[in-house]
């Protein structure tokens, strides 16, 4: 027999944005070596897919871990609207000093969604293209407070 069942709900969202991988910490030559064509000064873009996983007890009134329309509203307000059709490096504050790699975009989206009130955020997974994806499940508990 199995133990207590754990239910989670995953929803996929999309946004399109441009970015450029470039770090002021390195010389132009080092940037070129490190980021290659992703450092093109004019930027380039992707159709990002964001997979948001939340977990928690299933509310017997609704049969849901979290009300989908509430999750949709929250993710659209916190991520899709501020990120969609933007140049991430210049229009999303966090990426002015933080290279918008898929890893950093994923961590930033996780940070924005952590406060979702209706269920616990378990995972954020991002597909930058159909071939590249990154997932983040948060910092380990012990270091969570000290990193913020």
């Amino acid at each position: 027999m199995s133990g207590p069942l754990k239910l989670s709900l995953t929803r996929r969202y999309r946004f399109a944005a441009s970015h450029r991988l470039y770090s002021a910490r390195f010389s132009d030559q080092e940037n070129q070596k490190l980021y290659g064509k992703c450092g093109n000064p004019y930027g380039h873009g992707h159709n990002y897919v964001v997979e948001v996983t939340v977990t928690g007890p299933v509310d017997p009134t609704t049969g849901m871990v979290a009300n989908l329309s509430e999750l949709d509203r929250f993710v659209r307000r916190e991520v899709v609207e501020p990120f969609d059709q933007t140049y991430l490096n210049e229009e999303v504050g966090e990426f002015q000093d933080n290279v918008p790699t898929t890893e950093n975009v994923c961590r930033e989206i996780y940070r924005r969604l952590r406060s979702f009130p209706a269920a616990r955020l378990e995972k954020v997974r991002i597909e930058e293209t159909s071939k590249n994806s990154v997932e983040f499940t948060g910092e380990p508990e012990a270091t969570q407070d000290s990193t913020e």
Partner: protein
Amino acid sequence: MIRVTRKLEFSAAHFYHNPNLSAEENRRIFGKCNNPRGHGHNYVLEVTVAGEPDPATGMVLDLKELKEVLEREVAGRMDHRHLNYEVPELAGKIPTCENIAAVIWALLEPRITKGRLDRVRVYESPDLFADCVDGANRGDGRF
């Protein structure tokens, strides 16, 4: 440990309605999913079984047998059915992906005789799915 996953598709109708709530509350909470005429989905079920391959056969379990179990236990009950009215295991429950996944877990768990049931994933659409896992074996056990 190896995880083996088998898929099954089934098509079914459902709607969301809680008889203990007023019509207005039902509309507010469930939105257009509350339409009493129902609507349908092509559900995709992914069942994952975990275990060690048998040294003689090289298999964690016989996928043919798993396919038969899925067809009998899940497709036999849910394919081309109305989940609100025709699936006794869902009676009294709102047929969300979460509840469907938990019901499928309960149907399959006793039927998996080689390896152990590791995850039941139910896609309602390519952009929405629920996972049911054993809290003690998978994930961090927190809710």
